[in-house]
């Protein structure tokens, strides 16, 4: 559910003081960044593929209505049904309706951010369904009652000691003295517990990384194989996907697949990539009897052609999170939204409204790393700046800030006065900095100098040096 975005400042403070979280976040820095760099270096065509991926998405978005209609027709042709949902509530009701009509009791789920976005689990559970997440990371956070802290590694904020404690308290029917200190013990236990769930589920729900208009196939990628078990064993398979997942052809999907895993985990390709269309065929020995796709809008249909259109190119690889200094410091939960990090800070206000999520676009240093690694070259910093401008235009700035800016504008327009005032200030700051060249405390600047030093000015101003005839 989208909730709690408003507490960002408080959340970050807590996150920075959370030793277990800080330890776990070290894994993001050490793992993902190096792996992506290696994968990129191993594929000379990587940058070209990024350009082409961007073009594929731009073309698709410009013809989105037509490709979606074609996708729908192909799903029907394969014997499946497509349901359109304007918002989260409608999507939840459609999915619950399918479960009810199927006489379902238990539901297994492959990893799906869309079902997080619409708050599906709680809704289904309130109606009496057993809902079990099968991606190991999603399962870990489900038994803790948490939300994902990363879009591809939902439990990246946890350490194995925490998982051991959770398994001991949650899997009560297993012998209490069993060893659980190694990662292998934990994975094997989850495998054992979840097997039974897979086999007994009536409905399996997966997400989709791509919807292929040409063939009516939806595509999932996993490393565990949980998505395939989720969609093959139950009687009913539901795909939950948002509109912008559509791509024209298998060739287009191939290019996107080449950059997806490399950007995400640094793999050439995920272990399992599965293209699915329709229910089981008549001769098939396994597979579901029913196949449904729920296409979620949630505000996306208003974005093509507008100033936030670029966000619809996102393929949810997570690279912008991994490379973001703010995400690396506070983790995903601090954002308080389903989608954290740079992509979440742009997307959340679009889904949730800028007043609810107004802190997020400000939680950015505009360092530009996210755009540099985004496989579909989304200009995330520019879009974050756009949100800030909108936010600023909406709410009156503080009187103090307003006065400061007015003063600044006045001085900037009067160069002689500006120099008269700044020259002594520069001298004073340089003196304060002393030989270290750093200032550790500054009147009125406590918010800055509490956490870090201010570099002291070196020498005289640019204008003064220019006048003396210095040229770079």
């Amino acid at each position, binding site marked *: 559910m989208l909730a709690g975005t408003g507490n960002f400042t408080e959340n970050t403070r807590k996150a920075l003081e959370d030793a277990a979280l800080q330890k776990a976040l070290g894994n993001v820095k050490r793992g993902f960044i190096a792996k992506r760099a290696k994968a990129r270096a191993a594929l000379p065509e990587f940058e070209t593929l990024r350009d082409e991926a961007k073009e594929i998405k731009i073309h698709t978005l410009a*013809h989105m209505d037509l490709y979606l209609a074609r996708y729908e027709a192909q799903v029907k042709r*394969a014997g499946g049904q497509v349901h359109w949902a304007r918002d989260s509530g409608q999507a939840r009701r459609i999915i619950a309706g399918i479960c009810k009509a199927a006489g379902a009791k238990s539901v297994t789920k492959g990893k799906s951010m869309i079902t997080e976005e619409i708050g599906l689990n709680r809704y289904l559970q309130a109606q009496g369904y057993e809902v079990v997440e099968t991606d190991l*990371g999603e399962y870990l956070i489900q038994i803790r009652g948490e939300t994902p802290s990363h879009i591809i590694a939902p439990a990246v904020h946890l350490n194995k000691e925490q998982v051991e404690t959770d398994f001991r308290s949650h899997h009560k029917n297993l012998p209490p003295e069993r060893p659980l200190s190694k990662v292998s013990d934990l994975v094997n236990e989850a495998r054992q517990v979840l*097997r039974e769930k897979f086999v007994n589920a009536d409905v399996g729900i997966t997400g989709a990384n791509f919807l292929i208009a040409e063939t009516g196939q939806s595509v999932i990628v996993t490393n565990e*194989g949980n998505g*395939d078990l989720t969609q093959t064993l139950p009687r009913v398979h539901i795909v939950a996907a948002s509109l912008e997942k559509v791509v024209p052809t298998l060739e287009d999907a*191939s290019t996107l697949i080449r950059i997806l895993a490399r950007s995400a985990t640094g793999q050439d390709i995920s272990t399992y990539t599965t293209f699915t269309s329709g229910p089981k065929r008549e001769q*098939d020995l396994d597979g579901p009897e029913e196949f449904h796709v729920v296409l979620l809008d949630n505000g996306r249909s208003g974005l093509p052609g*507008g100033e936030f259109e670029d966000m619809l190119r996102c393929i949810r690889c997570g690279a912008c999170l991994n490379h973001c200094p703010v995400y690396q410091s506070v983790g995903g939960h601090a954002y308080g939204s389903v989608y954290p990090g740079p992509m979440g800070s742009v997307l959340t206000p679009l889904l949730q409204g800028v007043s609810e999520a107004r802190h997020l676009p400000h939680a950015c240093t505009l360092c530009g790393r996210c755009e540099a690694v985004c496989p579909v070259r989304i200009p995330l910093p520019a879009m974050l700046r756009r949100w800030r401008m909108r936010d600023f235009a909406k709410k009156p700035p503080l009187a103090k800030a307003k006065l400061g800016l007015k003063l600044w504008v006045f001085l900037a327009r009067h160069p002689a006065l500006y120099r008269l005032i700044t020259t002594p200030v520069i001298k004073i700051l340089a003196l304060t900095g002393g030989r270290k060249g750093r200032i550790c405390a500054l009147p009125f600047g406590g918010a800055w100098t509490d956490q870090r030093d201010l570099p002291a000015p070196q020498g005289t101003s640019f204008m003064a040096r220019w006048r003396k005839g210095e040229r770079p």
Partner: protein
Amino acid sequence: MSAREAILGRIKQSLNVSGDDAGRKHTVKSRLETHPRHTIPERGQLDLEGRIGLLAEILEGQSASIAPVAKIADVPEEILRYLRGHGLAPALRIGENPVLRPLDWERAKLEVAAGAADTHTLTGCSTAFCAIAESGTLMLLSGPQNPATLNYLPDNHIVVLKREDVLASYEEGWDKMRARGADIPRNVNYISGPSRTADIEQTIFLGAHGPRRLHVVMVK
């Protein structure tokens, strides 16, 4: 207005286009019909020996194994050797597979059951439609000959692949599928190693939900 009409209408409104714009329709139709290729990485574009070498190298790097046999009749012996080598029971399950069914499994003293996998199936065996050298990927088509559960439920998965079916790129695999002429199956499965997870502290562990082992038997 139905949700479908509302959503498609809003997209058109955002794009400032009308639905019956012939130019847009033509663009979409021709993209779907010609399905143009984009840049294909050079790494897979080798001769057959080169492609096989690359496939094996990547698969082995992903903790899968690969063994050549001279002819299809040798497959049961190789599977027996593999299962024995890992201390596994000499039993496996296959689909209604026209390539695998006629083989002389009895001579190799392998117990073979037919059908989809269940939770008791320890080893499943399927045939690959082709393989993609550039990423070390096996491409399987689901159907009675290859029930998808065989790929994911058993502890061990064995895939029989013909040498000449090792292709360079995903695109070549799709062209081969289109050339079949038949409707597409429910699943096209890309498999690039045994099941794995890195969800706990980014430590890679094999056999998360799917097979712990993947073995490829390559037939000349």
